[in-house]
């Protein structure tokens, strides 16, 4: 854990808090959208997590990850810091998990802050005489789904960044990957749903259905993490 937190400390210092004003403004904009704009648009129904809220919770941190994760290894390679890091005692897995954890923690942390601000804003703007919390089962399911989906994005992004020669190349590959996954994913899900007996999920609540999806995506996370571990070879990274 100590090594993972060391890598996360460096990532946050290097990427996020040393880039001047933009480093502070960027998360504030996202928190503003998720915590002020969307709740004010959705009014009191914000706390029941309407579709806009669910999409915001899922997609906003995902886009944050996709725009930043390309830098994780390709950026180090481009700035000639990777070789020195690899020559240190830091173990392979700790480097990888630290990098994934840093980007995921940043994006997911911003999302949680946005939800907290949204809770306060919705309660103040549409006061019902007592404090109202988000609809708990749905809130937990959506937040859990957000975590596993964003972990998938972070793992996939790090995997791409591992072998990309430059940050630009990594970002191009991630953009193409996202397009393929979005359209391909919809197609595959559609095929699976058609193959399943009709009404199979009708007895499940939306929250239960979301938890089922969380479990499936969590398995995909583990598979992708395993692939990323396997692809992390110091000798290949040095030669790339």
């Amino acid at each position: 854990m100590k090594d993972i937190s060391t890598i996360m400390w460096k990532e946050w210092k290097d990427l996020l808090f040393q880039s001047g004003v933009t480093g502070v403004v960027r998360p504030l904009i996202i928190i503003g959208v998720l915590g002020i704009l969307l709740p004010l648009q959705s009014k009191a129904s914000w706390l029941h997590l309407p579709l806009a809220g669910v999409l915001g919770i899922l997609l906003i941190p995902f886009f944050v990850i996709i725009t930043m994760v390309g830098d994780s290894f390709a950026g180090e390679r481009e700035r000639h810091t990777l070789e020195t890091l690899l020559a240190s005692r830091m173990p392979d897995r700790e480097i990888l998990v630290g990098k994934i954890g840093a980007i995921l923690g940043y994006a997911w942390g911003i999302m949680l802050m946005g939800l907290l601000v949204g809770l306060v804003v919705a309660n103040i703007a549409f006061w019902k005489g007592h404090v109202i919390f988000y609809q708990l089962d749905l809130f937990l399911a959506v937040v859990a789904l957000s975590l596993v989906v964003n972990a998938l994005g972070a793992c996939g992004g790090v995997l791409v960044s591992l072998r990309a020669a430059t940050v630009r190349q990594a970002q191009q590959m991630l953009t193409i990957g996202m397009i393929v996954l979005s359209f391909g994913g919809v197609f595959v899900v559609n095929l699976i749903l058609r193959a399943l007996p009709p009404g199979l999920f009708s007895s499940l609540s939306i929250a239960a259905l979301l938890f089922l999806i969380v479990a499936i995506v969590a398995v995909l996370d583990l598979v992708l993490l395993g692939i990323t571990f396997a692809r992390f070879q110091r000798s290949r990274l040095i030669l790339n």
Partner: protein
Amino acid sequence: MDTYVIRTEHLSRSFGVVQAVNELSLEVPAGIIFGFLGPNGAGKTTTIHLLLGLLEPSSGRANVLGFDTRSQADQIRARIGALLEFSGLYERMSAEDNLDFYGRIYHMSAPERGARIKELLSHMDLWERRKEQVGKWSRGMKQKLAVARALFHHPSLVFLDEPTVGLDPVAAATLNDDLASLVAREGITVFLNTHNLVEAEKLCAQVGVIRQGKLLAVGHPDELRQEKGGSQAEIFGHGLNKHMVELLRKQPEVTAAELQNSHLTVTLREKSEIGPLVSLIVKSGADVEEVRRGKANLEEVFLTLMEEKS
């Protein structure tokens, strides 16, 4: 404990048809600065990568600090410091944070890290600027910081890959002075890749010369000068002329002779005497006033080796 911190046996590494390191057998004793000399592309950086276990050898083996580079690379990397081809500094972070990060990597406590940052940055005259982003610094300052980072966690062996390349002479001299004093104070072994022969001559107790992946010579700079460089003589006087230069060049103990301004420069083979040659010149009509003997410098040895093997 083994007195050699690095041992390689027939260590080789190829990239396709290119043989980057070729049958390298080397022993580096503890507690010295070992200079690894060679022209660009000689295989110096690949050798460091092999010794750090960052690359697998194609054949042969290497042992660093008693650990095998193939199977115990983690153990090696836990005990060494490295300044590789690039400084490897995080330019958006401050100097203090750069050192702090590497201290954390090596599990140093916060008070230990703080004390070491102050000690090294003060030694390098960088303490006052510790809060500045490294990206705003000059190349010389960055290299000093990178050397400090390599030494930060008190490693017993440090690899430095051309630390003064690209620096102006003043910055390079300052860095070398800082390096020499730190190495003497901390009692560590340094494996120094360089093609700067003046630097090697000044800093290194032993040097190895590599070309196209092959080790050509190894030893103390004085030994190499003795073995490979022969010796030089400068003869001053009146009446020295081109005819005498031709005469000297015909002598078996002379490898080169030149008339420079008003004196003759003669390069002799190993263990040759200058006396008979002076007599020859005097007999030819010259009035010899002074003879100065000197040894070839490391640069001449290096060039001789490069010519011999090409």
